[in-house]
């Protein structure tokens, strides 16, 4: 039986050469994301924006009349409502803006039930008051910042300083670009999105750490090799694993996008983009970044031996 071979066994591809393209590209994309973040902003969901969300399902044998729903909902006088048809048959999502005071949201719910109970079933309703939404923004931000700090600490202890810095550059890059995906696709940004970002932080490091583990090992083995060559060797020798893992993760995420249902689709799409971003950045951003960070091959001058024997790094 002939087995699948996605990456050649002995590859000597010059990945580092691409840094002259990928560094400016990543920098531009990051800056564009930051600009978009300030000018356009994220499409905050109800968790962070507050307000009321109602998912309606037309009763059996009836169809959803979006125009009528919009007309009725706007007639409540709670401000501009958003009405959106969902993928499912007769399913409509209605979003009401945040009302002043905690009780304001309850009034929205009551009116919505009074107006739509006759023709529709309520599949889901969510109400988030002003205080809770503010706190969710806060705890979400703290969560992402803390995770980056915690990971930084771990890397600091576990790896040489230059490698830790390179990994952090890659992780920040991946967070920024993932946020960019949220901004461009207009996928709703809510608590699950924070989960997606934290998972991407984990995945991004996973990718980088696998390469850097090899870099560290090679540093100890070959003490006189030029940095660029060392990094190329690290990536080439881990590439077949990178291809396998990215593909298997992609396969499972594709299944999630296609079959996981409307409620989880946004999460799955972002994760899918995240996996692509993380794989790209491990190869083309965080590893070449080591060249600029100034990865020093310790003992390069002291020892001329080139052997596979384990030797202390410093």
């Amino acid at each position, binding site marked *: 039986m002939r087995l699948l071979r996605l990456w050649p*066994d002995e590859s000597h591809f010059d990945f580092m050469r691409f840094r002259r393209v990928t560094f400016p590209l990543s920098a531009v994309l990051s800056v564009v994301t930051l600009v978009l973040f300030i000018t356009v902003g994220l499409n905050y969901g109800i968790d962070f924006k507050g307000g009321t969300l109602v998912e309606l399902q037309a009763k059996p044998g009836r169809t959803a009349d979006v125009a009528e729903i919009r007309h009725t909902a706007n007639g409540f006088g709670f401000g501009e409502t958003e009405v959106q048809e969902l993928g499912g048959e007769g399913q409509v999502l209605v979003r009401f803006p945040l009302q002043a005071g905690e009780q304001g949201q309850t009034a929205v719910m009551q009116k919505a039930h009074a107006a739509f109970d006759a023709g529709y079933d309520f599949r889901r309703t969510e*109400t988030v008051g002003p205080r809770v939404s503010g706190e969710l923004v806060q*705890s979400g931000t703290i969560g992402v910042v803390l995770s980056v700090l915690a990971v930084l600490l771990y890397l600091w202890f576990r790896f040489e300083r230059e490698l830790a810095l390179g990994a952090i550059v890659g992780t920040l890059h991946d967070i920024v670009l993932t946020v960019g995906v949220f901004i461009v696709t207009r996928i709703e940004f809510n608590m699950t999105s924070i989960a997606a970002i934290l*998972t991407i932080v984990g*995945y991004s490091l996973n990718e980088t750490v696998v390469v850097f583990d090899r870099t560290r090992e090679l540093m100890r083995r070959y003490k006189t090799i030029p940095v660029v060559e060392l990094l190329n060797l690290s990536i080439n020798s881990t590439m*077949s694993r990178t291809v396998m893992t990215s593909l298997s*993760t992609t396969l499972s995420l594709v299944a999630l996008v296609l079959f*996981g249902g409307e409620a*989880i689709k946004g999460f799955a799409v972002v994760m899918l983009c995240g996996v692509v971003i993380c794989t790209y950045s491990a190869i083309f951003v965080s590893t070449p970044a080591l060249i600029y960070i100034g990865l020093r091959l310790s003992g390069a001058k002291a020892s001329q031996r080139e052997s596979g024997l384990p030797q202390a790094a410093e």
Partner: protein
Amino acid sequence: MLRFSRTKIVATLAVILIGLSLAVPSFIPADSRKAFMASLPSWFPSWIIPSRAIVLGLDLQGGSQILLEIDQPDLVRSMVTGLRDDVRRILREASVSPEGGIRVINRGVELRIPDAAARAKVMPKLRELAQPINNPLAAGGQTLTVNEAENGTIQLVLTDAGINDRTRRAVSQAIEVVRKRIDFGGTKEPSIQQQGSDRILVQVPGLQNPQELEDQLGKTAKLEFRMLADSPSGDVDLLPSKDEGGAKVPVERRVMADGSDLTDAQPAFDPQTHEPMVSFKFNLRGAQRFGQATSENVGRRMAIVLDNVIQSAPVIRSAITGGSGQITGNFTVKDANDLSVLLRAGALPAKLTVVERRVVGPGLGRDSIEAGEKATLVAAALVIIFMFATYGVFGFIANIALIVHVGLILGLMSVLEATMTLPGIAGIVLTIGTAVDSNVLIYERMREEARSGRSLVSALQAGFDRAFATIIDSNSTMAIAALLLFFMGSGPVKGFAVVFILGILTTVITAVTLTRMMIALWYTWFRPKALPF
């Protein structure tokens, strides 16, 4: 290291089998789980298949989740009212009357006693109102500060620590009241938990429209018996009266008896008018206070005040010493029912406000489970085919490890009675993709080592040894992110974090131990000369 002793194999298999069997109850519908347990032969040890199962989150099984917050301004208001009553009592007992009465100021009360002698008489008593806070975190703190100015002005102001302490106690009190009010509903299995310092999370599976529940929880249910005042001046409050169509009526501030003295309340019908009413019983203390109040005020009207609304104000015909009475007030049967539940459960220490509400209908939950199952199966099929196509026999081994891996996550979740949510299902699907990473790391390393000229056995060995450090490193970084997610996240997101953390734990068992054992067995049985991929 490719030699696995028989004991080691048995031990590994036993751990895995037990882990997998833990998940069994989660695959049996809750209503037939008991019957299934009973159908197991009696020799079967019950700890292998315990009755514990994964709990479905509200987003999957449908139901209502309400986050309530103690209304702190309301609580402070009632604290100030209580303070004013205390001060008034002290002044009355000492026969001292303040110039211009007792004024309510921000978070406290103020009064002026110009006469130094009279002031000296009440000051010690007033200072006693400040209580030390019984909380190690606020050591030495007092519930209020008492200030005495030169001109005879006395201020009693609540401290922040005092208010926070009271809030803390109010939340635990409120949880008890909420529990009694909901549990009265019967078969529902609500979950009521404190969240943060001033919030209560109420989850009721299956409840589709929480409006009625919210109405019931939103009422303070503070019941007071006070005398109607003759004139609207002096120590009176103007309260709306149901009898007079909502018009405000003066009521004395002094409370003769209140709801905390009730032992029981039941809906009933007035024997004369056949109108619904609520009959109640006082405890001993309440009966005495009520008896004394009614005997001193025969012929006057007593207001029955519920949440600052006069329900009715009957004339006291004779002293009521039996310790029971009725509340009437144009109730419907449902009103009378609800009110008696509220009175039995007791009053809330302060108003509760809904700050967050999430309701999921049964249809959506069912759809989510179906979609989740489908996505899981498709993802598993794709990854299994991919692994087999790439690694052949070793892919097959990785696939067994993968299936065991997912099974162990479910088994652990069952023992922990963890909550499975929609993001949790997404976590399982994602795990299917990432779990094979450890196997891939090991296999690719083996291939490299074999290529560099090592013998098969030494390549297999080196693959495990060299990849191990990387597996630990990459899983640790994932674990850090997942742990933070667990501590920062709420509800559904937490379910995702749980799946992820357990997945990282079990990957060590499956990818390292189980895979190694299967490869060792493969080597012993087939004695191959080269890697199969």
